[in-house]
């Protein structure tokens, strides 16, 4: 092979090598582009910040309880223990709750009633969606038509009747009570619900969702059924 030919082939093979390497780079590690703009990042940051402050508040809360346990003598410890149990019962739904919140009323739309439209009972799907929306915007406890919602409360259709906790709810007008942590949160929830588009979904079913302003004091009844416990067994060894 003459020198000239070797040089030519060398140059070409250098180019080939370069091209193969570039192709390999492109196929193996495609660059994942960060497409978030400054506001998306700020949004994420604020979410994390909120989670952070919630966790801090929770820690402070538990620290308080621990300090009380450590400080007090036995009798007040019993009271504290009872308080904790009551708190838990309230959270689960075994005790009634007082607090700031909202009252919603669902009833037939007036103008449709006059024209003789059929008033259908509220569909479980719509109710479930409303409940999800309420929980999403920091609603703590919910009562639908006198039925306290617990973690296991079913909202479903039984033989064409919408039921909550397996008890049929009044089909013409329903009152929903919601309790939130603070009055500010109740006002915020009012704002969210007022602005959200699913009021139109109620109108599709010939119903009217009336959202009343936030109130300082609302009482929600306790769950009057019985919790069945299939998996946990009481252990009396400690006694």
């Amino acid at each position: 092979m003459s020198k000239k030919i070797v040089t030519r082939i060398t140059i070409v093979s250098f180019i080939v090598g370069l091209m193969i390497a570039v192709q390999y780079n492109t196929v193996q590690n495609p660059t994942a582009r960060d497409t978030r703009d400054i506001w998306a990042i700020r949004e994420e940051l604020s979410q994390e910040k909120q989670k952070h402050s919630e966790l801090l508040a929770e820690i402070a809360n538990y620290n308080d309880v621990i300090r009380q346990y450590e400080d007090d003598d036995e009798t007040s410890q019993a009271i504290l223990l009872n308080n904790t149990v009551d708190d838990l019962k309230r959270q689960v739904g075994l005790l009634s709750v007082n607090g700031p919140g909202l009252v919603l009323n669902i009833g037939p739309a007036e103008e449709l009633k006059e024209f003789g439209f059929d008033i259908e009972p509220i569909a479980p799907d719509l109710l479930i969606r409303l409940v999800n929306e309420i929980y999403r915007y920091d609603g703590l406890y919910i009562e639908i038509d006198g039925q306290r919602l617990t973690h296991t409360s079913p909202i479903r259709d039984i033989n064409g009747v919408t039921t909550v906790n397996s008890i049929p709810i009044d089909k013409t007008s329903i009152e929903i009570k919601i309790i939130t942590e603070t009055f500010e949160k109740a006002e915020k929830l009012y704002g969210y619900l007022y602005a959200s588009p699913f009021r139109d979904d109620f109108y599709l079913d010939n119903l009217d969702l009336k959202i009343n302003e936030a109130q300082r004091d609302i009482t929600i009844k306790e769950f009057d059924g019985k919790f069945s416990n299939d998996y946990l067994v009481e252990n009396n060894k400690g006694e």
Partner: protein
Amino acid sequence: MWLPLLGLILGLSLGLLTDIQIPTIYENYLSIAVLAALDTIFGGIRANLQQVYDDKVFLSGFFFNIALAAALAFLGVHLGVDLYLAAIFAFGVRLFQNIAVIRRILIVKWEERHIKKNKNTV
């Protein structure tokens, strides 16, 4: 003889170390260009072994083949027909043929040398 291989390794390492990337949409074009370039190299080696090597043919073939393949792929993308397959097929077949010819020539050369050696020793 080892210089082309050195060039290839140099090109590969340069490409890998610099971490150059091309947009994903041009991936197809580059893969065809690689194939065209490989075809040109083996064509050149074969021509050289058959003593018909021409500098102009070699260099023009290199650039023209790459351009043609890329143009075909481009046309295919815009017509909705996978025309780049035609280029891949053509280059693939030629690559195999060229390599086969190179192999045969090398085998013949090696045998001739072997026979010569045997004659010398006898």
